[in-house]
């Protein structure tokens, strides 16, 4: 038996025909097992207190932001909530955490903290039960863990990211409000705490994170490009595993709170890096890999594709409104102060139509044209469409970085200022309150934005063409199929270049 298995594996190494018969494991090309490479990392990530220790300081910080936003100065650039959340946090999130550390924000995110506490009635410990003997008793048993709260199942029709898509677009329509008014930011962050807690009491596990949190949607999409991943090491070990601890939980940890099946995970989208599966796997077969940029390339539904359209449209719209010179557009978006309802309606309607209809429509035409140029295709139209939308992931992510860069370079000095005077009350805790507004290399930012946009385009072209080769097999077909989309991607890049440099 053993010999036979070994024989198959040996064969699999030489012949692709047999390789397809062998159990399909996660991709391993270009991966470096960080838990092996970095001493002490496995120890740290498998400590039960790890996530609690990560969240706690952040929770304290966010509660301080809420207090500052409520009681501090109403002037945005004098209040720590605006500067830290919308300048520092946003910049770190989109240009460091997401591209390099996947959904690392979700490790430290304070919003689901209270809800998860109520579900688990534990901050660090695990509630393990033997499902056969543990019947009765308080709470609900899911897998081999005991949970409290109602533990309803999330409605099937909403097990996608459409709520997040619409919620995020809706929220971002009012960006001029929360970017400039501390009290509005308090409302939004406060609402995230409240909704996260209520949904955790009603629905099982991280329903809020998976299906509702507006931040989560784009984190998942852009985490596909990220250079780290949590994956199983050896598919054979998982195939033979009877324990399924990563799914069911046990004495060492909770079953995946994100309702994933970690051992079979092949994308970053819905993995919150909570590290429970590292703890629950009895074979230490789960690990954290370093991997190449843009390693997950498969969008799995229209909800994810539309997320990509929405995000790129928002990057474009914000570049026009916040980095552009046109005052009337700022007035339209700034509804609370200017009360120009017609203007706001034009702005909001254009934004929604562009994000949900016009841009996807244009994209659809390009994909359709490519399929026509290629002639007969074997792949279903939906798969071709989703595959060709994927290039918007690197392109959109890098466009967001290019947009966010001048915000932090120009307004970064406010960070030092509000650290000393978080409420805008005239304090000077660290002697930095009087630092004048000092833009950092504002005249050189275009030289940083150009390479960022070009890197996004390069990865967009590379991944898109990779899909074309997978889907269209005849000679010359892939190029023709991808040509219209690649021209569209380049045109989008040129549009951003015009906005930033022209």
């Amino acid at each position: 038996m053993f010999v036979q298995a070994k024989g198959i594996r040996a064969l699999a190494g030489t012949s692709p025909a047999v390789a397809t018969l062998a159990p399909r494991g996660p991709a391993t090309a270009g991966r470096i097992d960080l838990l092996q490479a970095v001493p002490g990392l496995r120890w740290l990530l498998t400590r039960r207190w790890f996530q609690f220790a990560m969240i706690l300081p952040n929770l304290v910080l966010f509660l301080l932001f809420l207090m500052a936003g409520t009681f501090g100065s109403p002037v945005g650039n004098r209040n720590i909530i605006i500067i830290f959340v919308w300048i520092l946090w946003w910049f770190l999130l989109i240009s460091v955490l997401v591209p390099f550390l996947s959904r690392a924000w979700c490790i430290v995110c304070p919003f689901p903290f209270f809800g998860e506490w109520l579900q688990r009635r534990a901050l660090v410990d695990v509630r393990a039960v033997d499902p056969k003997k543990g019947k009765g008793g308080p709470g609900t048993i899911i897998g081999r863990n005991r949970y409290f709260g109602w533990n309803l199942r999330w409605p099937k029709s909403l097990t996608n990211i459409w709520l997040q898509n619409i919620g995020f677009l809706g929220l971002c329509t009012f960006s001029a409000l929360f970017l400039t008014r501390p009290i509005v930011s308090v409302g939004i962050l406060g609402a995230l705490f409240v909704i996260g807690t209520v949904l955790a009491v009603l629905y099982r596990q991280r329903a809020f994170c998976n299906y509702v949190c507006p931040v989560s949607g784009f984190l998942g999409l852009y985490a596909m490009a990220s250079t780290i991943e949590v994956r199983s090491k050896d598919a054979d070990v998982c195939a033979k595993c009877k324990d399924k601890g990563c799914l069911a939980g046990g004495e060492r940890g909770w079953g995946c709170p994100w309702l994933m099946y970690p051992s079979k995970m092949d994308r970053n989208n819905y993995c919150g890096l909570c590290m429970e599966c590292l703890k629950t796997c009895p074979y230490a077969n789960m690990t954290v890999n370093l991997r190449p940029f843009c390693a997950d390339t498969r969008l799995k539904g229209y909800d994810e594709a539309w997320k990509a359209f929405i995000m790129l449209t928002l990057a474009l719209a914000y570049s026009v409104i916040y980095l552009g010179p046109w005052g009337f557009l700022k007035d339209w978006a700034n509804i609370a102060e200017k009360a120009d309802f017609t203007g706001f309606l034009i702005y909001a309607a254009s934004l929604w139509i562009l994000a949900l209809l016009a841009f996807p429509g244009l994209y659809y035409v390009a994909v359709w044209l490519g399929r026509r140029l290629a002639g007969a295709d074997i792949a279903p139209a939906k798969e071709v469409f989703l595959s060709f939308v994927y290039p918007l992931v690197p392109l959109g992510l890098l466009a967001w970085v290019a947009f966010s860069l001048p915000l932090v370079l120009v307004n970064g000095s406010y960070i030092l200022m509000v650290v000393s005077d978080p409420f805008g009350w005239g304090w000077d805790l660290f002697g930095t309150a009087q630092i004048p507004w000092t833009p950092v290399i504002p005249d050189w930012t275009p030289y940083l934005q150009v390479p960022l946009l070009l890197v996004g385009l390069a990865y967009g072209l590379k991944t898109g063409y990779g899909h074309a080769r997978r889907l269209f097999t005849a000679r010359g077909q892939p190029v023709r199929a991808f040509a219209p989309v690649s021209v569209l991607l380049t045109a989008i890049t040129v549009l951003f270049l015009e906005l930033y440099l022209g």
Partner: protein
Amino acid sequence: MNVGRGAGEGARRLARRLIHQRRGQIVSGMVLLLSLAGFGALGFLVAPTLPKPQERSFTVVARRYGYDPAIIRVNRGDTVRLRFVSEDVVHGFYLEGHDLDVRITPMRSTVEVHRSGHAGEPEVVEEIVFRAEREGKFRYRCSQTCGFMHPFMLGDFVVGPNRLLPTSIGLAVGLLLGGFILMLTKSGPARAMEKDDAA
């Protein structure tokens, strides 16, 4: 002996294949670089030649939250004269890359000019005059907290020939067309090579 020869042959074949693959990578990289450099240079060169330097005067009207003109276009070498008016509250005019920060007060034709070199009392003038020496796009931003949207109150000062724009568009097009060349060559020989590997 026979085995040794076989192994030597195998190693040589492996080496040849490695060189072949690397050569492919090197050639691909060269194609892409040439395309980028070519189209980038083309973009750089198509920029218009500048007319003779002129004197350009603008009155910048500041109001919450924008400037009129929103975009000021001049050419390198031009002498730029700026006067300022504020229609509502105190605004600023901080010009990126020009060591110039102006404080504009409503109902007053003079402005206070701050430059980093001149510490202490600001200079009070009716008009600011300078020569546009650096080409490119520089934003002018409000530097006096003037309301909710203050951090986004800005305008564009574009100094021609602004060759960064056509150059970078050239680079994007170079990426696209260089990519096309790579794709076309890949779908031919590269594909055949993969089949070789499989056999």
